[in-house]
């Protein structure tokens, strides 16, 4: 649940989601759920030429199980907060 809460706090920020099929999509984080499925708005594909079928897609739902990376703005990362939350989760979980 740690990352679910973490991503909920990042709603509204611009992120880049890289999928396991190498497709990378930049967009505004609209919502996330317990499976870490992600809904992005105002999306643009990073390598548009390689993925022509995504040209007119502006909103999408991405299944959590196919995400490789979620790239965040560096000011979206509070390391100390994450450390504390991780230690708490490790103790409790």
């Amino acid at each position: 649940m740690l990352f679910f809460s973490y991503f909920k706090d990042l709603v509204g920020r611009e992120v880049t989601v890289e999928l396991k099929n190498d497709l990378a999509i930049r967009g505004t984080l609209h919502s996330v759920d317990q499976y870490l499925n992600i809904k992005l708005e105002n999306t643009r594909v990073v390598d548009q030429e390689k993925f022509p079928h995504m040209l007119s897609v502006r909103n999408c739902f991405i299944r959590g199980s196919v995400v490789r990376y979620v790239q965040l703005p560096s000011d979206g990362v509070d390391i100390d907060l994450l450390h504390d939350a991780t230690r708490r989760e490790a103790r409790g979980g």
Partner: protein
Amino acid sequence: MQRRLDSSSIVDLHQGRSWHYLMKSPEDIYLSTSLDKKLLVLLRDGRKLLGILRSFDQFGAYERVIVSDLYCDIPLGLYVIRGENVVLIGELELEKEELPPHMTPVSEAEIKKGSEGGEGCYGSQGYNEKKDGISGYD
């Protein structure tokens, strides 16, 4: 009195019940907002399916096969897709161009010819499961 806890459940404090506000799976939550919208569904095997969700439109669902600059739309009719096979569900804006202008539509026979015998072992549908797909063990 009701208090919303998170995006998917509401607790009815008077009666102490909790129930999921929307449907069971997170994909249902998205799909109910996509009714009658044109969607692009990317599958784990690399295939791209396009269609309008739950309408009685004559076009139904069709598979768009893309091989370099050529594409072909193959009609499929009604498709029910199991969630585990879905990579991405994208909303297609109706007025916008779905593909870059340099791409040319060809017939089904042409696209099958274009996808065989090339590098990277394309299947008969023109998608490369090894290259474009996501295996279950990824």
